[in-house]
């Protein structure tokens, strides 16, 4: 956990959580899902229902299967047992369904995964143009809109390699948003960043939450979890060990593993 830089909830823009509505509609449904890497049972009997507008933070020790879980949701990893239903579409080996789900689900990675041979603007317009068949001009306007939103419109014509880590991650968020996704997945979006850049990325994510985006976020930023999440899920050894709303989760952890984890991550 040496690479985490907890940001205090007080550093972040205050969020009025009561204003964030969670609807009754189901966005993601995971039923008895299991996954193996060869003989290794990484995910065991995962059951999870995410409603539209929910902001879920997934925490847990290294190797507990957090990344694997959210990568299963857009089928970057294949599950072997159980069901994953995203936006009413069940993920099977049907490629058409997979591409459909992926175009509805945005994903932000720890290492940004921007395309270094394309400019920032081209990074943002690539998928809308080719997947959504949006005209180039319109795609560029949308891209500029989201680049303004993540506060880097002036970098549009540069290449990713010329930007700082925090800027690159904000571009990655904008790139996902350009597809107008209904769900966003974040896999440790800030853990490859220097401390002073973490806040700018978290602020962007908070803004997104305030707009009602359904978000699943693997992160060690407990300040962010407290400020934004309406549910924290704790994983260990491939299982969901505990889930609760953030205040309860942090103040009254019930499982021994959760207590140990929280004491390690919060008790400086």
């Amino acid at each position, binding site marked *: 956990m040496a690479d985490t830089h907890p940001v205090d909830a007080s550093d972040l823009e205050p969020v009025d959580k009561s204003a964030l509505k969670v609807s009754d509609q189901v966005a993601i449904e995971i039923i008895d899902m299991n996954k193996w890497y060869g003989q290794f049972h990484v995910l065991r009997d995962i059951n999870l229902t995410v409603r539209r507008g929910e902001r879920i933070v997934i925490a847990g020790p290294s190797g507990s299967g957090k990344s694997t879980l959210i990568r299963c949701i*857009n089928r*970057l990893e294949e599950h072997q047992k159980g069901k994953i239903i995203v936006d009413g579409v069940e993920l099977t080996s049907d*490629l058409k369904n997979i*591409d*459909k789900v*992926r*175009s*509805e*689900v*945005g*994903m932000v*990675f720890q*290492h*940004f*995964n*921007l*395309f*270094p*041979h394309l400019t920032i603007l081209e990074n943002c317009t*690539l*998928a809308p143009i*080719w*997947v959504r068949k949006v005209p180039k001009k319109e795609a560029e306007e949308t891209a500029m809109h989201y680049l303004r939103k993540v506060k880097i419109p002036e970098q549009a014509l540069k*290449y*990713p*390699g*010329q930007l700082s880590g925090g800027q690159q991650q904000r571009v990655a968020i904008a*790139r*996902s948003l350009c*597809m107008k996704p209904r769900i966003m997945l974040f896999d440790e979006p800030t853990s490859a960043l220097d401390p002073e850049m973490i806040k700018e990325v978290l602020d962007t994510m908070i803004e997104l939450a305030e707009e009602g985006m359904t978000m699943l976020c693997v992160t060690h930023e407990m300040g962010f979890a407290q400020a934004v999440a309406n549910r924290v899920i704790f994983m260990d050894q491939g299982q969901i060990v505990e889930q609760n709303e953030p205040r309860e989760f942090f103040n009254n952890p019930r499982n021994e593993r959760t207590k140990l984890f929280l004491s390690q991550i919060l008790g400086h």
Partner: protein
Amino acid sequence: MDDVAWTRTEMLGPEAPPASAVGIVGWMRANLFSTWLNVILTVAALGAIWLLASHIVPFFAHSVWNASSYSECREIVARTWGEGASGACLAVIRERWKQFFFGFYPADYYWRPTLAFILMFVALAPVLFSSLPRKMLWFSAIFPGVAYWLLWGGSIFFPIAIYLGFVAGYVAFRVAERGPSFLPPLAAAVVTIVWWLFIAGPLANLLPDIGLPAVQSKQFGGFMLSMTIGVTGIAFSLPLGVLLALGRRSDMLFVKWISVGFIEFIRGVPLITLLLVASFLLNIFMPPGTNFDIILRVIIMVTLFAAAYMAEVIRGGLAALPRGQYEGADSLGLNYWQATRLVIMPQALKISIPGIVNTFIGLFKDTTLVAIIGLLDPVGLITSIRANSAWNGIVWELYGFVGFMFFICCFGMSRYSQYLERRLRTDRH
């Protein structure tokens, strides 16, 4: 201990560097005479250059352009520069240059390969330089047909019928697009090949024979032949190599096995044996009476050979890409072919530029191997010129000339690749 604390009160302005660090003297001091070892190496290198120059410069300074045989050349050199002087007998090149460039192509039609050569640059320009208008790529696309027609002549409808094969393939691709993702390329390939094998020929024969007088492949020779084989091989080995490299990494076992088998087989066999197969054995397998053009056979072999190497070079580029690039493309919903074409290949090819150009250069030089199966490329021509009693014994001038011409082409490719690497660098500007 108040001398520990210290603040600068005035900032320093920039100054010019000292004279010993700039200018030619500074450069020489830094690069040629910086240490004793460097001094010794510099002196030794100058000595070696002097030694080479003292032999080469007189050889060319004494060169003879007007003579009709090697012995006459030597007489002229001896007469003008004294007994024992060396001099290049460039008269042989003056006499045979047309042969070197065009082989035995009919002299009346020299304009055809020349025009094809010039148009080649027009076709290459938009491919090589992205600042040119993209519309020019249309000419690049039809250039192979135009060049074929100019070189071999015959009915204009034959290349057109071949091109229609691509159209048929494209239609098949679009029709099959509703199926699983492996189907469109497969359908396109099958339809195109069937069209070429069974429809293109009869179709062209049905249409009136409008075109240029035909020229036989056996009349081809010299640099024109090297260029034809080399450029075609280069143009086709790259896409084929890309497909093989993708095939080798495919999840579909069948595709993977075919690609691996092809690459390993072709790489494991010397090119010369493939050429011998092309020249002698293929006819045994063909139905009697079919006339499968020898140059076409050679081009196919050279292309397959280079494509196997190309595939491995590109596989290296693919392997060097971080997995995050595939995941980034996948997570945006791009399908396999879109991700490959828009995200993966541009980067993999960029990484592979040095290896790709290496393969191109190797392929171009390997075209001289066709001399062994009796085609009169420049090296084949040298053998036949030296067999002529007038030029018996001449060596340096001919091989030097051919070597020099190849050097220009290969050096040009090498320089271009360096330019391209610089231009495609996006990490710092």
